[in-house]
């Protein structure tokens, strides 16, 4: 099971990195996700944007191109993907082998700027990543734990929560 734990301090640091990226580039929003499609953090203007679904699609996109890279005999994944639209561009960058940074920006925004600062943000995030991945492995490292009777309580209440309509 892939296990990731983001403490509040982690989230704060990640969000700060994403905000700086947006501040320096004027991009619309930035999304940090993992390759299984889970959304770790998002910053910027995301009203009306389904970031959960976007994270799932981004991960699928990157995973598909990783397979293309493999077929072409590349030793590593493609590090950057770029999608060009009429109003928005989407810049996707790999952070190591497990995480992805997506930046959505207007076509008026300078691509070079986004590329540069996205790369810097990815480097910083990449340095932090081992902490999220290892937290659960180290006993006592996480100050917060899942309540002991979480699964039992969920089982007891599942019929109330999940009603067929």
């Amino acid at each position, binding site marked *: 099971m*892939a296990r990731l*734990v*983001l403490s509040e301090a982690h989230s704060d640091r990640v969000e700060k990195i994403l905000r700086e990226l947006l501040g320096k580039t004027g991009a619309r929003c930035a999304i940090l996700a993992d390759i299984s499609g889970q959304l770790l953090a998002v910053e910027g203007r995301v009203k009306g944007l389904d970031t959960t679904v976007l994270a799932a699609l981004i991960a699928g996109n990157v*995973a598909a191109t990783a397979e293309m890279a493999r077929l072409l005999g590349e030793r590593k994944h493609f590090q950057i993907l770029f999608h060009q639209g009429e109003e928005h561009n989407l810049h996707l960058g790999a952070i190591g082998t497990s995480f992805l940074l997506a930046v959505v920006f207007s076509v008026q925004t300078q691509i070079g700027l986004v590329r540069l600062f996205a790369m810097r943000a990815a480097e910083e995030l990449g340095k932090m990543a081992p902490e999220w991945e290892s937290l659960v492995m180290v006993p006592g490292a996480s100050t917060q734990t899942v309540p002991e009777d979480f699964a039992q309580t969920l089982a007891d*209440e599942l019929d109330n929560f999940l009603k067929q309509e």
Partner: protein
Amino acid sequence: MLINWKLREINLKIVYYGPALSGKTTNLEFIHAHTNPKMRGDLVSLKTREDRTIFFDFLQIELGAIKGLKPKFQLYTVPGQTYYLATRKVVLQGCDGVVFVADSQRERLAENCATRVNLLTNWRDLGIDAVRMPLIYQFNKCDLPNIVAPETLRAALQVDTTPYFIASATQGTGVFETLKAIINAVAARVQTQI
């Protein structure tokens, strides 16, 4: 699995796996159509013009807070067509539990078995421990006339202690039972993980 303490959320990924046309997408469509819209997101389907899954379907279910922690379940389906074999492994990445949707029709028996072997192979390639991964079987299309007995499917798929549900995804029987079973199995694992 992702726990975000700032948002007090726990994200869990469940993958519907199975042979071509066994009814994986139909399961998600039924769940989407029959849950309170407040508890679910949009159903996103990456499919061909013929409605066959080319990459995956995606649906997020969000339950109310349990002991101050809000569980979110991300449901995915894989493409059953062997033509898209490579993408199955991609979708399995980081999964916390699997629903194996088998097709109960007699002529699909061999295909069910082959897909189960393929699931085990993909798990192994991804470094996933098959013994500990939550797995629920669903014997779908039970409404059709030419089906094999559940016992036959059980034996063929080597379902011994693993729970299974008999279902008709088009009619909706067994769909929620299957979903609840995998949710509970996955949630039980969360506890032993931390």
